[in-house]
């Protein structure tokens, strides 16, 4: 059984206005998203800004209200557990995008990393300190760091503190919301490889939210592409990168930079071709509102939102 099953998830935000602040509409941030993640795998959620990928992640962990749909974790529906203290919440943790704002600048590293421990485990001061120092060593920071403040660390180190905090409760699922997009490229690789290492060590499952396809290709086993709150395509890494079917996915894949300068001209021609196809077929692949159609199977693992007339 899959560890996380998301079925027809919808997160709508009301637009209020007019007299008496009535609800006059809704922003469909996430509009019918379904996917499932197997234990120990990494699932990549890709899309442009505003496509609803972060909202999906936050809805799963309970930071956003779920309008409809089910989120099943280990067979238990999470929609009923909104931010309540329960063992289920303990098993899902999140790594935030911005390592500068996700750590409270007024707290020492000890207090930051020990926060989840204090909520769920009754440890004495010495046990707690020992545990925090172990965690810090696990993420490659020196045990002396516990008395420091977040501003005394670099971006990559801060993200590691965030990771140490996320793994403190030994969760099963970690939602990584663009964990490296705020870091510079040399540090990105460091953090990503480290995340893969602890995934093996702790048998973690990742929901990896990103807009960087290069990183997703490096990290993920399965990938879902989102556009305006809906899925346009989902499948295994090979499905998406080798046989993209939807024009939106094709355009995304074509946009991955190639470091080999010999192919530059060829890449440019290819990219222009894809762009032309995208412009020509836009109306076929999206409905009147510019939204994607329902997903259809084209193979066992590969789903694409193909137009009805196909």
């Amino acid at each position, binding site marked *: 059984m899959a560890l996380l099953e998301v079925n027809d998830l919808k997160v709508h935000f009301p637009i209020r206005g007019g007299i008496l602040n009535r609800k006059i509409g809704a922003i469909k941030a996430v509009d019918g998203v379904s996917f499932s993640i197997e234990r120990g795998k990494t699932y990549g959620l890709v899309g442009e800004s505003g496509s609803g990928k972060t909202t999906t992640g936050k809805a799963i962990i309970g930071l956003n209200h779920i309008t409809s749909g089910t989120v099943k974790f280990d067979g238990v529906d999470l929609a009923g557990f909104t931010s309540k203290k329960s063992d289920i919440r303990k098993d899902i943790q999140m790594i935030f995008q911005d390592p500068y704002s996700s750590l*409270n600048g007024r707290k020492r590293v000890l207090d930051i990393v020990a926060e*989840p421990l204090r909520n769920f485990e009754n440890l004495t001061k010495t046990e707690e300190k020992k545990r925090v120092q172990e965690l810090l060593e696990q993420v490659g920071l020196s045990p002396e760091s516990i*008395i420091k403040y977040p501003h005394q660390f670099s971006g990559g180190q801060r993200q590691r503190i*965030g990771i140490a905090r996320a793994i403190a409760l030994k969760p099963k699922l970690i939602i990584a919301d663009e964990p490296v997009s705020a870091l510079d490229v040399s540090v990105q690789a460091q953090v990503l490889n480290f995340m893969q290492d602890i995934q093996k060590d702790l048998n973690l499952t990742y929901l990896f939210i990103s807009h960087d396809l290069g990183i997703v290709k490096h990290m993920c086993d399965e990938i879902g592409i989102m556009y305006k709150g809906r899925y346009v395509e989902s499948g295994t890494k090979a499905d998406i990168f080798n046989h993209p079917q939807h024009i939106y996915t094709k355009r995304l894949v074509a946009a991955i930079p190639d470091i080999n300068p010999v192919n530059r001209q060829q890449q440019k021609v290819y990219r222009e071709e894809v762009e032309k196809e995208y412009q020509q077929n836009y109306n076929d692949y999206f409905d009147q509102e510019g939204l994607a159609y329902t997903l259809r199977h084209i193979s066992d693992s590969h789903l694409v939102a193909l137009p009805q007339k196909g």
Partner: protein
Amino acid sequence: MEYSNVEVVEVEQEKAPSMAKVIWREIVRDKVALISFIFLIVITSLVYGVSLFLNQDEIVKVDLFAINQPPSNEFLLGTDYGGRDIFGQLIIGTRNSLSIGILVTLMTGIIGITYGLVSGYYGGTVDNIMMRIVDFFLILPFLMIVIVFVAIVPKYSIWSFSLIMTAFLWMGIARLIRSKALQERELDYAQASKTLGTPNWKIMFFQVLPNLSSLIIVTMTLNLAANIGLESGLSFLGFGFPEDTPSLGTLLGYARNPQTLELRWWIWVPAAIMVFLLMLAVRNVGEALKRATDARQRRG
């Protein structure tokens, strides 16, 4: 203990990116604020220290043989129309006024911060209801209610006066904190705390509140100046303390008599100067604190 070598890392607990140090540097760099700060400390310790040795009953006792005496060796600042020593009244009055200012500031602070924090943190409907209650308090006629209160309360003490002032002065800070809390709760660290299973009240008071501390310090200091002035103002108008409880306001109140205003300066001028200096000094320190919390305005 195999971890004993790790345990040794008991380095001396270094204080925060030390707010206290930043503030101190700012005050030292600003000479006016430094002088104000020293003045405040001297006056406060003097007033509270000396008043321990003064007998309030003795000072406020009417002595008909020594009315309206100009300053002399016996009465350093002369006497009022009841023959009461002005110097003693000034010391005790300053103490009372300061006490009220500090008490009111602290009580409005505690109520306002808690209220604003809860309102801003939860937001939505809770915020809406709580802020309408604040609006209600804001439209109440403050002065009129205080006058009624003075009329119906038989024994008027520092405490009852502070309480009635607190009841009408907590809204400002509540609104300020609420608007800040609304911003803070959206930040990642507050959201992260939620995902880590921290209960809301803990996030409010142990995560969000420390991040508002600079704002709180500045507002409370500036409020203190205002509250000292407000007490004096009310007492001056006759809605504050009776004459047997000296305060800076009651001393100033004697100046409502034209004869006193014109001929017996020693009764009201010292109190006026004291109110003026106290408010100015607190304000100067407050302004320095305000600059200290904003890196762009710092001088130090």
